[in-house]
């Protein structure tokens, strides 16, 4: 597992035999043009190993959301490359990118983003339906059981609590057995008890279901569930902590000026 700031040349990570689940190479993202242009990411290289749980932290405006959008193929980098598993997704045409996202990436958003007109089961299997893939009912049952909403699948999202909705969103992210699950502030809208459950589910997904999980958060408690915390500041990597605890994360964040 290698992590670099752009000033240090990459060496070690690329030598390991299985490719990392997520691989960013000197990624730059600027918005706008001319004098009005804003650099969100100023050359970030990052590798995230398979079946790990990584938290990305940084002050507001540090580029952590942009990093996740690029890694998840929701946006394209201005320069540099993004690869998931063995597929280089930067440069893929939009149609293929969409298909790739659908089949190989899972999303969990802060505001759950379940469709109110669909039942929980329909919401969870929506990515499969969109990709015209059959639902593997054993896997479906396993996923809904492991996130603890097996009894709720016939309900509508608005009949569930926030925590339950977020767990349904996690189930939706896992149902396609994606190359990586990206979670954007997944506990931002939850009370602390629900947040703990959701984080436990993400941890469980990485450890027991062998899923790669990448989570953007500003909450040191949430980040402490990860295997590693990666810090961003002003569009550049600003260090990392392995096997983090809350105190170290808070201290590092304080250094970065938050």
């Amino acid at each position, binding site marked *: 597992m290698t992590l670099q700031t752009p000033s240090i040349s990459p060496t070690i990570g690329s030598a390991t035999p299985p490719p990392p689940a997520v691989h960013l190479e000197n990624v730059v993202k600027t918005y706008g043009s001319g004098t009005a242009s804003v650099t969100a990411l100023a050359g970030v290289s990052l590798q995230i190993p398979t079946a790990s749980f990584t938290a990305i932290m940084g002050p507001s405006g540090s580029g952590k959301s942009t990093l996740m959008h690029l890694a998840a193929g929701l946006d394209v980098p201005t320069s540099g490359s993004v690869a998931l598993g063995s597929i280089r997704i930067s440069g893929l045409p939009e149609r293929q990118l*969409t298909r790739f996202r*659908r089949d190989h990436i899972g999303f969990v958003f802060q505001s759950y983003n379940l469709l*109110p*007109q669909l039942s929980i089961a329909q919401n969870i299997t929506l990515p499969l339906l969109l990709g015209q893939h059959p639902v593997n009912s054993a896997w479906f049952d396993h996923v809904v059981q492991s996130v603890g909403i097996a009894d709720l699948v016939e309900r509508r999202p608005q009949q569930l609590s926030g925590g339950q909705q977020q767990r349904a969103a996690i189930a939706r992210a896992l149902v396609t057995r994606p190359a990586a699950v990206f979670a*954007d502030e997944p506990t931002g809208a939850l009370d602390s008890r629900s947040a703990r459950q959701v984080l436990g589910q993400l941890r469980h997904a990485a450890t027991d279901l062998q899923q790669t999980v990448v989570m953007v958060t500003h909450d040191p408690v949430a980040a402490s569930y990860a295997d590693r915390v990666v810090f961003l500041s002003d569009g550049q990597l600003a260090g990392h902590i392995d096997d983090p605890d809350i105190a170290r994360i808070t201290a590092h964040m304080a250094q970065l000026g938050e």
Partner: protein
Amino acid sequence: MWTLARASIAHHRRSFAGVIVAVLLASALSTALGVLVESGLRGGVPVERLAGADVVVGAPQSKPVPEDVPVPFSERALLDDDTVDAVAAVPGVNRAIADVEVPLTAGDGIKISAHPWAAAALTPSALTAGESPAAADQVVVDSSLGAEPGDRIELAHGGVPATYTVSGIVDLIGSADAASLAYLSPQAIGALWPHAGSVALIGVIADEGTDAAALSAAIADRVPGVVTYVGAARGDVESLAGVNARTNLIALSGSLAGVALIIAMFVVASTLSLSIAQRRRDFALLRAVGTSPRQLRGIIVRETALVSTIAAVIGALPGYALAQLLADQFAVGGVIPADFALAFSPLAGIAAVALTVGTAALAAIVSARGPSKAPPIEALVQSRIETPQLNRGRVITGLSLIITGVVASLLPLVIRGEAALAGPASAALLITVGAALIGPRIVEWSLTFAGPVLRRLRVAPGVLADANARSFTRRLSTAIIPLALGITLAIVQLFVPATVSAEAATQHAEGTTADYIVTSPAGGIAPELGTQVAAIDGVDAVTPVIRSNVIVATGDPDSEFSMVQPKPIQGIDPAASGKTLDLAVTDGSLAKLADPDTVALGSNQAFELGAHVGDSVDLTLGDGTPLTARVVAIYDRGLGFGAVTIDADALRPHTTTGLADHLLVSGTGDAVAGEITALGLSLTDASDLGAAGAGDAAQQSWASVIALLVILGFIALAVVNTLVMATTERRDEFALLRRLGATPGQVTVMTFLESGLISVLAVVLGTVITLPPLIGIAFGLTGQPIPVFPPIVYGMLAGSTLLLGILSIVLPTRSALRAPLVSAV
């Protein structure tokens, strides 16, 4: 508070854009109708032929109706000869010139209006060559004919040709498109004018220095039973079209305005409530941070007032152009003359702005009640999904309206005649409003049929479309109802006249038993020509048919249910009727029409008047002459031949021209046809001729098609507006689907299926709503409950509805999909 309102408008540009469009369109439409109504009161045809007269005197040209628009006479109302002297005797009158009008045709079919030579003084013109007509065979024509003094020209009156020598040429000054004029000597015009002892108009030349308006008042004061015209109003009386134009315009724009205003206001109100519903979340937030319900209502009403005032003012301007456009189309349809000048004043625009802004504000107050009263938390929860239940009151009201509408539709089963048709016509509107109220229920119900089909597609767009339709029945219903309303309106407006005219044509074709129908290329047939045809060897029977209108008052004049309406009347020869016509007489005998002061009535007309054979009825003939007549027969084919039938000799003096429309001829022998055509007449068949009143009906239906197109156009724009608004609002939903891996194609197919569902439901609903009224109307008219559905027109209606519904959802979907994925996160 205004600051908040302004900020909110800036933030919700998209949502407000929809409101702005709706208000703008409503304001334009209202302004246009306002201009037309005002023009009915103050506009007019410019005076041309009578521009040289200071005052024009005529007989009253319409029948006053208490508390309603006067009904115009279809024929020229005449003045007694003595009136000329009476007018001349009024102090200040220099000359009172009697004028009559006789239609002539030149050899090549050019229509010429002939007048006595004396009347040339009323027209700004100059005799540029030759001299005035002195002998009966002399004529002065205007320069447009290209004749020279001394030329011999043939002019026909009612198909009877006569040769005249051109004695002089006049040049018309300053009249652009007046019909060709001819001036005859007093003896010649007297021989052609069928109303000896009466004149059409009197043109007055005032003494030097006499004020025309004062003179006009003096004449009206001193001479009883006349109407005087000065200034621009002289145009009203110059031709019959001018007389009728303003009344027509008032009647037409009045009825158009009624429907259009209701729809415009409906559209403004529903767009506004959609826009407010879309911003529930914001309102909930405002409530949560401590805005009182009162303050919130204040914000909503203020922002609405601000936006709608600007939009209404901007919309009023194109409204004036729309009025001119409509007037031009009415002119094409013959409802008003082409040179009818509209009265443009700021009044129409001001009224339109006040009306639309008022409606918008009122709708805002009503729509703001929900979000402002709801507790903040509930409001936040509600904003996630629609309220699933319709309130009971709404369902009950909706159902009662539908039931009332259906019952009203069946009125013709119990009552006969055209009076009963008013029920079904308004029933369509009742049913539509009822359907609008229970719209979400209707959508749910119809999904039990459509849902399985969508789900059976087993593809994501199908499943999503089904789920969307199920969860957002209100959104669907908001889209379906206006589309269905358009279809309903179009069907009722187009197919009721179609049903009527189809039945009239059938009656006319079946009832015409004559071997030949004879018309004149000149447009009318003089009585002597009828005599000539009767003299042809082998001709059995000839009846002239004179078509005119009669004004019939039905019901108690003091009650709400009285109607004063023009109805078609035909004049025939009672002696020849048996061999040429079969009016399906059910009681009495047409031969008795030979007795003086007798009429036969169509059965519907008899029912409306409550008249039986032997009863006496009061009618007003086309020139305003009252007639009290005994009913001698009742017949069934009133729709095809006219509501009233009378002896041609009794009707002729009460028509302007005194000419017959056509002749019905029965006869045997090969030579008959040849001899008829040798007289310069032509043969035609019943379908080419058309049923009684078909011309008027065509004119009315053209006008109502125009009116309908305007309203449909407005509905179409409003529907597009609403659908675009509603679809644009779904950006977030589309973005989420895209992030979950839906391709733009899948999202488009999903909305395509939804829009297809909406449009098909709209067409079905719109059609079903019209069935009870149409069946009722068909039964009332024909006794058969089978309405006429012209397939091509219906296909076009349904097709354009489908296209409109689908495009206005799919296109904004495509545009919403173009937004980048991340900025939408």
